């Protein structure tokens, strides 16, 4: 039922239109709302493809309306669903399947892809690169921010474009393609990088800034900062509020600086 030949038989969706859909998918969350979530963003992104596929106004209206229903997934992984929706809409336009197929396709994939994308991008890649580049600030200066952008977006944009093409070519079988990327395994490795980089940042802040600003009490200050980091880690595990910790640390340091 699926394959490259199926897409080739749907000349109504031009490469330019596909590019427009991909570009508009970058606005997926522009009007995120608690009821339909990304529904309006999805309809906005798909509209050029639906216009190409359904010259008949009634069929076009029906197509737009079925994509104004609830939709929510991880925004990068949505590229795969967008590709898959165009694949299915092409088949619907040619009369090869009913509209319920595309609705079922979205409903079946948005949850699992959200879990996969959240786990990899939000909970692994972003924290790992954020911590790594923050720890590299003493070495690279402002270039660390640029390095973060480059490293993150090489992965992000490559995967986003690949997922879109995968959806277009494979339709329902895109799940197999996504599974081959081994995102959970990469995620676990990246989370380790994040924790290790945070440790390096504590050490740099304690030793370098402590010694520079402490004067005669520089060594004691450095040890104090390291201890503060360890205590803060322990307190966060006891669900102590992050803001309370941050402001308490500031208060202690200001008091120490004023009276020591």
């Amino acid at each position, binding site marked *: 039922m699926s394959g490259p030949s199926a897409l080739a038989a749907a000349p109504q969706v031009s490469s330019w239109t596909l590019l427009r859909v991909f570009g508009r998918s970058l*606005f997926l*969350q*522009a*009007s*995120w*709302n608690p*009821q339909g979530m990304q529904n*309006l963003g999805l*309809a*906005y992104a798909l509209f050029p493809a639906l216009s190409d596929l359904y010259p008949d106004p009634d069929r076009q*209206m029906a197509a737009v*309306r079925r994509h*104004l229903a609830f939709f929510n997934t991880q*925004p990068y992984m949505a590229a795969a669903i967008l590709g898959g929706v165009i694949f299915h809409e092409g088949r619907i336009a040619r009369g090869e399947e009913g509209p319920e197929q595309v609705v079922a396709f979205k409903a079946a994939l948005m949850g699992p892809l*959200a879990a996969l994308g*959240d786990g990899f991008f*939000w909970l692994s890649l972003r*924290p790992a690169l*954020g*911590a790594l580049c*923050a720890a590299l*600030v003493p070495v690279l200066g402002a270039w*660390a*921010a640029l390095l*973060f*952008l480059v490293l993150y977006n090489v992965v*992000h944009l490559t995967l986003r474009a690949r997922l879109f093409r995968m959806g277009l070519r494979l339709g329902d079988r895109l799940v197999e393609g996504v599974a081959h990327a081994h995102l959970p395994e990469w995620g676990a490795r990246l*989370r380790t990088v*994040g*924790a*290790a980089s*945070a*440790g*390096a*940042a*504590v*050490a*740099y802040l*304690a*030793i*370098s*800034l*402590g010694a520079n*600003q402490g004067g005669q009490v520089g060594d004691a*200050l450095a040890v104090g*900062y*390291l201890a503060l980091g360890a205590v*803060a*880690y322990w307190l966060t595990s006891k669900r102590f509020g*992050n*803001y309370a910790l*941050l*402001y308490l*640390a*500031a208060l202690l340091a*200001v*008091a120490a*600086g*004023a*009276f020591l």
Partner: protein
Amino acid sequence: MVDWSQVALAGVWGGLLALERRAFLQAMFSRPLVAATSLGLLLGEVESGLFVGMLLELYHLGAANLGAALPENDTIAATGCSAAAASCALSTGGGGTPAIWALAIILFGWLGALGRKVDRWLEPYNTRLARKATARAEHGELRRAVRQNLWGMWPHFLIYGALVGGCAVAGYLVGPAVARLPLQLVRGLAWAYPAMGAVAAAIAARGSHARHSASYAAAVAALVVVAMVALTCRRVA
């Protein structure tokens, strides 16, 4: 003396970064490290932006936008603190110092929590847009229906842009007062920056979601300490 062109620049860039965070692209220009550094660069105080961004990147590292859950708005915290630190440093004429960075974070670090409230407050507006789009689609105005999507962006741009501009103004106003603070208090504020940094890094280690995060963080921290002490000893010798 407030430089209004700098305030306007901070407001526009802050508003654009607020859009990038959620409405458009999400290529992480809005992450604290990048957002604060870029804002500092625009205002001519890149060091202040960088060090404010570094600390807030670590502090907000583990926050994630999962499903309908709203995390704190790390972007407004970063852009607000960076704008305040940069304009404060410019108004003192002495450049950025750890005392100024700490003061900016103490004064405006809580904007992340306020941002979450603003984000929640704006949701009904977007719900109305979605309803309007459905109604237009039913009347056959399909192009206008789907374009409702873009109208969801302007309140974020205006509100967060105004907040960042306000922080820049506050920085200019606080600057002269900072120059008159007692030396002990300035020293205390300078000590507060690494103290808050150590706490933020500890929060980051937990926020990394890694198994055995404490072991990895402690092992690498120990390695860095040994390396830095060894380097210092070599220099002294």
